[in-house]
Structure formats: C-alpha cells, structure tokens
C-alpha cells in the first residue's frame, strides 16, 4: 500500500510530540498524530478535547470532538468553564493543534472570513476555541494539508487567532510561543517563539526548496540546517494502520 498524505502528516506530526504531557487536539489528523505518539515517542501524553473530555478510551473512532464514544469510558468530562478557564487559560496544555484558512509568517491565523469582515467573500466558521488554544498553549502545531500561497499569505484578510507577536504589539504579555511547527504536504516550517518568522526547516523527500517558496505567499526563509524528512517507518505505518485507525476513517 502506498503512503497516503494523512499517514505522512500524522507520522511526521507525531514525532514532534516527544516530551509533551497534555495536547489539545481536534478529531482527524491531530488525534492520529497523538495516538501514534502515545505508541512511540510520548507514551504518557494525554489528549484533552474542546468538549471537556479527558482520558478518553473510545470503543470506536470518534467522528467529532464531542462524539458520544469519547464520553463513555472516559476518565473525566469537565464542565466547559473548567475546560476553557482552568485547563486552557490555566496553562495546563503543552501543545495545541490548530488548523486555519490562512496563516502568515509569524503563525497568526485566520479562520473568520475571506475578504472584508463586514462584507465577506466567504464567511468561515470563526474562532471556536482556536483563539484560546493559541493564547494559552505552550506551543501550537498547525497541520495544513495544502501548502499554497492562498493559505500561506503575506497578509491575513483577518486575524482571528493571533500569535504572541501580535499580542505584545497589543500591549499584552502572551503565555506561550504561538505556532512553532507548521506541517504540510511539502515540509515543515518552524519558529521558536516571539519575534521569529517561520523558516523552512525540512522538506519531504523529492520536494525542493523552490517548490516550497513558490507555494508560500511571503518570502520564506530557509533554515541553515535544512533537513529531509524521514518518511514514515514501517513501524509507524503498521501502528497507524493496525492500531490507531484500522477502519481507515481518517487515514483515507
């Protein structure tokens, strides 16, 4: 079986979770990555879901972050005030996973509108808890299936979820580093924290730097120690396919 894009992204993302204790993740690629990390680099890492579920032991693969199968047999279901107030804002999350319609060079995210907010070309869902995940996690990983200049943009149409640089410019000291990893079908962009731009630090085998730069809407910097991403190992693939998502709900 050839390696799917989901398998690739999940395997690569999972390796970045070494050392994390608590991860805030949505359903899909992020949960695949965390589940694989639990079997490999981070055996004790715990997923906390936006619905308030902690320590889920689902009998079936969940379809949403609030799926009934996540609740039954879980260790705790927190009230929403506790989840957002004590867990997220209380700085209990090491790594948050987010997606977005647009990302800029500092890892600021837009999930609200394409076009002008007051007369949008496309009205998107908005923040949900994304703003809180960005403001309160130790760091944020972004997984973007499609790496193109419309999504990786020099200027966001609207900033829904700001990273720490924008927070500081607004006079408020942020907790975390903001986006530190962006994992795409072309490679990995990274930054270490406040004041830094995203740099290309790794590419998938066969992807050139020029391809990534052409797919990025700003003048993308390239790390001096650019590496090639090791493709998913046999073990990683086996665990993803046999243990994590045997029904291939998200590995499609």
């Amino acid at each position, binding site marked *: 079986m050839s390696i799917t894009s989901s398998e690739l992204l999940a395997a690569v993302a999972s390796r970045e979770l070494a050392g994390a204790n608590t991860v805030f993740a949505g*359903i*899909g690629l992020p949960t695949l990555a965390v589940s694989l990390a639990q079997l490999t680099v981070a055996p004790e890492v715990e997923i906390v879901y*936006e*619905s*308030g*579920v902690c320590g889920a032991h689902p009998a079936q693969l969940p*379809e*949403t*972050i*609030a*799926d*009934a199968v996540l*609740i*039954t*047999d879980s260790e705790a*279901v927190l*009230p*929403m*005030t506790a989840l*957002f*107030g004590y867990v*997220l*804002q209380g700085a209990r999350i090491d790594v948050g996973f987010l997606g977005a319609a647009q990302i800029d060079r500092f890892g*600021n995210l837009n999930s*609200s509108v394409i076009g002008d*907010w*007051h*007369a*949008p*070309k*496309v*009205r*998107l*869902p*908005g*923040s*949900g*808890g*994304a*703003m*809180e995940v960005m*403001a*309160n996690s130790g760091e944020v990983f972004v997984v973007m299936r499609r790496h193109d200049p419309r999504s990786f943009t020099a200027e966001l149409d*609207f*900033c*829904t*979820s*700001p*990273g720490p*640089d*924008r*927070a*500081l*410019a*607004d*006079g*408020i*000291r*942020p*907790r975390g580093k903001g986006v530190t990893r962006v994992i795409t079908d072309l490679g990995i962009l990274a930054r270490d924290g406040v004041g830094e731009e995203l740099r290309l630090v790794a590419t998938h085998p066969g992807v050139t730097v020029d391809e990534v730069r052409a797919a990025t809407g700003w003048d993308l910097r390239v790390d001096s120690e650019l590496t090639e991403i090791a493709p998913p190992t046999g073990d990683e693939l086996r665990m993803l396919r046999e243990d994590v998502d045997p029904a291939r709900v998200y590995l499609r």
Partner: protein
Amino acid sequence: MPQPDKTTSMREAIAEFVTDGATVSLEGFTHLIPTAAGHEIIRQGRRDLTIARMTADVVTDQLIAGDCVSRLISSFVGNSTAGSLGELRRRVEAGALAFEEYSHYGMICRYLAGAQRLPFYPLRSYAGSDVPAVNPSIRKVTSPYPAPDGGEEQIYVVPPLNPDVTIVQAQRADRSGNTQIWGLTGIQAEAVYAARKAIVVVEEVVADEVIRSDPNRTVIPAHAVDAVVACPRGAHPAFVQGYYDRDGAFYREWSQISADPQRLRGWLDEWVRGTADHAAYVAKLGEERWAELAVGEAWSEPVNYGRRL
C-alpha cells in the same frame, strides 16, 4: 413543601417565553441541542430574534432560514465537521444578518458575567486579534495589581450576556425543574442562570425520587427554571448521551439542503411547518432511522450518599 409543577407543552412554553424581538440563548455543545424548541419557534413564526449560541449550527441555520432571526451572537458558525450552513453564510455574506463575533471562551465569559451579575468578565483572549476591531463590545481593563515584571498589566474583558430566555435540552428533570445532565454538560447552567427566564426541554420528566437519589447530577436547580417541557428525541440531529446517537447523515445532508435556498425552504415547509409538533417530526423520520441511532448500555456505578443511622 409542595414543589410547583412547571411542566407544560412546547407550544405553550415557546408562546409564553419567546416573544418577537427577544434575545434567545440556545445552548448545547454538539450534545443536547434544543432542536425541537427551535422548530417550534419557526412554527410560531417569531420574528426579529437575537440568537445567542456558541456553536451556531443546523438549528441556527434553520431559524435564520425561517426568517426568525435578525441578529446572531456566536463563536462558531459552521455545520460541525460536515460542511457549511448555507443560509447563514448567504445572509452574512450579503450583509443581511447582524453578526456579533466572539471566541468560545468569550461567549462562556459573557454567560459567566451574566450569571454572576458582573459588569464585565476578564479573559486572556483577543490580545492582538482583529475581533475586537469588529466587535466594540470587547474592551480592555488595566489590572490594579502589578504585572509579574512590575509593570502595568492590561486584559481584555467581555460584557455580560443576559438573554430574555434561555432554552436548553437535558436528559431528565422533575416536574419542578431540577434538571440532570450527564455526558457533556456544556455551558447550559450558566446560560440558564444568566437568563431572565429559562425553559428546560427534557427527554423524560422523572419522579422526584430519581432526581433526589443523586443531587450532584442536578446541573440546573428548580429555582432557575420557569418551564419544563417533556420532548423525547428533541435534540435530533444532535445526540443525547445514553438516549440516542448523533445523526451524522443528517448533518452531511444539511450542507446540501442549505446550499440551495429553494430546497431549504421546501425542507422547512415539509419537516417543520408541515409537522404539527415534534412528535410528528419524530414519527416522520421513521422508526428505521431511529433504530440506527439507538444506543446500548453503559451504566454508571452507583455511589452511596449515606444515611444517618
């Protein structure tokens, strides 16, 4: 101490507590969405409502398409993971629906401020976001305590949200309104306490003894409730933990239905305006569909509250 009996029909509860122009909070996070109440609001043709709902999803789209809504206060406007809300998107993109945008915790803090009668509630969101620029209700306060670095510290705040009426769905309540929820409890208690009036829609009205066997399970106490409506399967297509599962197919279908204004209107005419009440809607869905949504058993271990000997 006779407990006042607050049970009533959905029709009467909506007629009495949801008036044209009111601010109506409908809460329930994926779980326990008060769909049946939303449908009854459409049937009764309410107009000019302000709807407050963290995750504005299918029922919100239906209320908007039913011409009930002039203003929306929300932090997520999407059809769960299944696609888009056609009518909501069309109207917002056309400037035909006023939209107050928040983040989830912003909404939660508005309910917290409302329930606690606070002038504002502080939160560590919005710093550097464009949302405050399009929502002037989100403001800043300077802390009267020094920041960790000794300097001045600023924080964003949101104002209280005090709906005219909050409607929530729950598993069960007694006749006086002591309401028990398990699984995701969401922001329902805060939304009820923030409101001037509260309607609780339940799968079952149960005997007092059931509620009193487990008072910690009561998420909303009777003194905060004005009407109790028994409405089995009232959350469809959402799920009710231990009662029925989420109708994923419906959510996926909704992206198609709502994408086409004419098809959407037809759907409302057939399924909402064309059904006399929620029992008729449930029957129209058919037992086959309900059988697919049936759930098995996973019972909690009882705990001992103890008795003085």
